[in-house]
Each structure stands twice: as structure tokens, then as C-alpha cells.
């Protein structure tokens, strides 16, 4: 998998392209149905158990449906904002960096994105908070964008780079403009890799969004934190199970997108 990235000197050997195996085998198909059902059942069971057990006053403070839904909503919002920003930044940037005129800049941006991913997410969030002074949604979304940019950026670049040169030659040769070839040939054929990168970014984002409570960003991390500080195990359980369930669900959604959004015939 590292071999496809060799066009970019800035890509270190360890940062392999995120390309999940295509969903074709029987076990994968089974997972496609089983994963969301299992997640929903387990999460629902834990939440119902927690809410219906005898709770003390402290627990009731956090373990009630409106609070849980609010925190879940914040968590999902952070994930969505981060993903949209990542796509909005990384895909155009990735395209730009594969154009002949800007190719020389690719190592610079890949190095920056590499640093973003290599640095611990919590460190990036806290540093950004200390530097900017803002808190809440954006205080966590912006550092997380930096943190999750790399998979999408790198996969966009490699996805476009790995398109057979003869197809581009054929496209230009029959009279398509450079932009036409990009939009109608290069990008569609890069979609499977871009989606694979986005799936990785989504999973990273939904996982690291549990750190949002550090900068007043809310999210399911708050349940875990509260449960830990006040030694309320049930609250911790609910927070942890919800965070894990959400991550698995997002991963599943990413898998579905890879499967259904990629143009037919594009997988190589």
C-alpha cells in the first residue's frame, strides 16, 4: 500500500495510504448488516439499563435522556463540522497539489498534515485553546480538522496520481480540456480512495471529539469525565458505550458511502 504513495517525497513510509479492502467478501457483507444492528442493540440496552436502574441524585443530574441527547448532539455536530471542513479543505487542496504548476508544494503540505496527525490530539486542542482563547465548538473543531486532514489530503493526491496516465492522455487527445479531464476522469476515479480517506478521518474525528469537554465543547467525553470525577460508574459506562457505538456507526456509514458512492468501474 505504501507503493502507491511513492510519487510524494513528503509521505513517510509509515503513513500508508488508507485503503480498506473493498467490501466484496461474504464476511464483509455480513458485517455491513450486522454492525449497525449490533451497535444499536447494545447501545440501547446499556442506556435503558442505566436509565431504569436506581439512580442517586448525582446520577440523575446527568443520566437523563435530555442531557444524554444534548451531549450526543454536540458530539455529532463536532464530527459533522470537522468532516465538512476536512472535505472542503483537503479535497481542493489535494487536487491543487497534483496540478503540474503546484506539484512542488506537495511535500510542504504533506509534511504539515503529517505533523498534524503525528501530534497528540489532546495536545493540539489544548495548545489551540491557549493560543486563541476561544472555547466551545470551534475550539475543538479547528484543531481536529488539523488533526484529521492528512488521510483525506493524502488519499485525494494519491487517488488522482494513480489514475492511469494513458486515460488522461486519451481524454486530452480527444479534445477534453484539462479541467474536463479532472472533473470527468481523474476525480471520479479517485473517489474510492478519497472516500476511504474520509472514512478514516471520520473515525478519527468521532473518537477525538470525546476530548471536546476539555475546552468546553461538550460531547460524550463529558459523561465519561463526570463519571470518572464523581466515581459514578453507570455514567462512565453510558458515556463510553455511546462514544464507541457512535464511532462504529460512523465507520459503518463510511463503509456504505465507499460502497455506494464510488462510480462503477472506478475501483482498480
Amino acid at each position, binding site marked *: 500500500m505504501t507503493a502507491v504513495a511513492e510519487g510524494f517525497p513528503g509521505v513517510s513510509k509509515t503513513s500508508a495510504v488508507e485503503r480498506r479492502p473493498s467490501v466484496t467478501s461474504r464476511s464483509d457483507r455480513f458485517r455491513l448488516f450486522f454492525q449497525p444492528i449490533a451497535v444499536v442493540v447494545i447501545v440501547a440496552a446499556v442506556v435503558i439499563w442505566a436509565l431504569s436502574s436506581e439512580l442517586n441524585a448525582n446520577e440523575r443530574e446527568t443520566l437523563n435522556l435530555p442531557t444524554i441527547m444534548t451531549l450526543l448532539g454536540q458530539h455529532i455536530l463536532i464530527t459533522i463540522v470537522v468532516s465538512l471542513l476536512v472535505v472542503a479543505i483537503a479535497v481542493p487542496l489535494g487536487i491543487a497539489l497534483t496540478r503540474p504548476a503546484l506539484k512542488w508544494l506537495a511535500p510542504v503540505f504533506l509534511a504539515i498534515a503529517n505533523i498534524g496527525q503525528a501530534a497528540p490530539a489532546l495536545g493540539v486542542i489544548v495548545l489551540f485553546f491557549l493560543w486563541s482563547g476561544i472555547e466551545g465548538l470551534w475550539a475543538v473543531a479547528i484543531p481536529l480538522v488539523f488533526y484529521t486532514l492528512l488521510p483525506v489530503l493524502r488519499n485525494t493526491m494519491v487517488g488522482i496520481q494513480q489514475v492511469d496516465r494513458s486515460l488522461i492522455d*486519451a481524454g486530452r487527445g480527444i479534445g477534453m480540456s484539462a479541467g474536463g479531464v479532472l472533473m*470527468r476522469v481523474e476525480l471520479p*476515479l479517485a473517489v474510492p480512495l478519497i472516500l476511504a480517506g474520509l472514512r478514516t478521518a471520520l473515525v478519527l474525528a468521532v473518537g477525538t471529539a470525546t476530548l471536546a469537554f476539555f475546552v468546553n465543547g461538550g460531547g460524550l467525553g463529558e459523561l465519561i469525565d463526570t463519571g470518572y470525577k464523581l466515581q459514578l460508574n453507570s455514567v462512565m459506562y453510558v458515556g463510553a458505550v455511546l462514544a464507541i457505538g457512535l464511532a462504529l456507526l460512523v465507520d459503518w456509514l463510511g463503509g456504505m458511502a465507499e460502497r455506494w458512492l464510488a462510480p462503477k468501474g*472506478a475501483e482498480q
Partner: protein
Amino acid sequence: MTTSPTTDVTASDSPGVSGAEIRLDRVTKRYPNTAAPAVEEFTMTIPAGKVVVFVGPSGCGKTTTMRMINRMVEPTSGTITIGGRDALHIDPDQLRRTIGYAIQQAGLFPHYTVAQNISVVPGLLKWDKKRIAARVEEMMDLVGLDPGTFANRLPRQLSGGQQQRVGVARALAADPPVLLMDEPFGAVDPITRGNLQDELMRLQSELGKTIVFVTHDFDEAVKLGDKIAVLGDRSTIQQYDTPDAILANPANDTVAGFVGAGASLKQLTLMRVRDVEYSTDEVMVVTEDEHPATVADRLTKAGRTYALVVDDRHRPLRWVHVRELAGRSSLLQVGKPVGDAISTQSTLQDALEAILTEGGRAVVTGSRGEVVGTIDITTVTDVIAGVREEHGVGEAG
């Protein structure tokens, strides 16, 4: 004696020609930071409606030269005109929509269906949907792919040969006067390649495009080309002539090396039996119902030893020797069956093969399989001698 269809190259006004003349004048391509230019002062006129094949060793610049015609490679200097229009002063994208382009391995878009691939250029030219759909169907018929079966398939669901056909259909979709083909059949097996070449020749006889075809396979060049340009280093023209002339009289050692051994044998693939004087009276033809004694008598009188027995529709059956006739009452069981009969459509190469297997003389049949004459080895050698003389082999040494 030989009526080669390739001798007349000024046929732009003849019926069935939709091609345009291409003129390259002192076209040079020089890449930065290289001492020698890739293509140097290339001057050539490619006649309208003809197939011109660029042939030469790898790296000689033949592809670069071809790609300058549609400006996939931008010439450093020189002029190129296509049908009188200055190609270097047209927007390259617009120019390329009027020039068909077919490349090795077809270059089909894997995420487009066959129909979508073929409709790319008409789409770029803003044809309306109905016209495009009709054109796609027409093109698929033209290249021998059933639209009902193949229109909605993806390229990976086709064989290499079928992909190549789609590639040709895509190149021809907008009915361009000029077609550039860069080793289009290089990646398919020899049998499929032969079929595709035959198809291309058939297409060309219908369409009369101006085709520039690049290959490193000299046999392919001989088969397809109305004219062949043998190119050397920096795309210098070693010889630019009909296949006939190049085979008969290579201009220099480079060309001779490229023609390779067996030039005369290749020459034979260019000529058909109908073009040569096969004999019509060398062999006595008898029907099965004649009496052996009569036949033997006639053979002796004519001073011959063999007769050809034919059926009631004059189709060849057996060779019979005068000695075999003695004491027979009927011709029905006598003689050696005729093996390979060749038709007037056969190439001289096929004729030679038949002559060799038949032991010196082969039967020539007409369109309904009837005997029209025979051909022997001296006919073939005479033809070769004649061609070599015609192209002045003696003088050039």
C-alpha cells in the same frame, strides 16, 4: 501487370474520401535541456483519404511527430496545416475534437459505459442527445459490436479486441476527417490484431479518412499503409513511399534493416491472384463423365501428362496422370484430390503456399468455386522480378 491500389495518391476528389490533407513543414520539437532535437525539420505531405504509417525503432520520434499533428506535443518550430487550416493557430482542445485519436490499450474510461465512452466527443461538440444516441449505435455497428449487447457494458467487461474496437469507434464518433492511431493494436494477441487490421481496412475503404498510424511492426505497416514512412533518429525520413516500392527497393541500409529478411515474401502479401497473369490454358480440364481412354488420347495428342477433373459445376476435384488412365472405365475414382485451391481474391502469398503444397501448380477458382485457371511458381517469380524492375532495383544497386 500489377494494379496496386496504392499507386495513385492524389485521390482527394475521388468518391468516398472524407479525409483532409495534412502538411507538415519543417516541424521541429526540441525539449529543454537536451542537445539534439526529438524531431528535426520534419517535412511531409499526407494525402487526403490515405493511410500513412510511421514506422521506425523505439525512440525514433515517430509518436512525437504524430502527436504534434493534434498538438498533444507542441512543436518548437515549423508549420502544420490540416485541410488547409493552420493547426497551430486553433485552440488545441477545439482542434483535437476534429481529429480522431486512438491509442494503445484503447484508453477507455473505466467508469464510463461503452456508449458513454463513444459519446464523449459528440458531447463536447454539443450534439443533441438524440443525434448522439443514433451516432453511438451507428458507430457500434460500424466496428462490429452489437449495440443491444454492449452499449451498457463497462470496458472491463470487454475483451482486449472489443475494447480496441470501442477505442476506434470513439475516435470516429464525431466523424473527424483525420484519425491518429498510436500503436492501437499493439497490446492484443496476433490473431485479434489481424482481425482488427482487416476491420480497419474495411472501415477505411468505406470512410476514406486520412489516417496517420504509428507502429514499430513493419508487417503491420505493409498491410495497412497506402504509404509508409520509415523514420530514423530524430524522426528523419529514411524513405516515404508505397509499401510496394519500399519492399522492392529499400532506400538505404536502415530501411533495409527494418524491412528485414523476406522482403519478397512480404511483397507477395500485397498482391492478389486477380492482379497477375495466371494461366488459363496450361492445364487440360475434363469432366467426370468423359471416358478415360478419350482423355488419355487427348492428353497424348496435346503432349501433356496431367488433366484436371472437375464436377458438373466446373469445381475442381482431382488431378489425374495419363498413366493412371490405362485400363479404367470411368474417371470417378481416379487421381489425386485437389488440396488447396486458391481464389482470385487470395494473396500471392497464399498462392505460393498452395503451389508448394500442391507440388508445383495450384488451381485458381472464381467467385463460385469454378476453375478459372492455374498458377505456378514461375508466375510468382516473374511478378517479383517485374516489381523489382519497376522500382529500379538494378540501377540503385
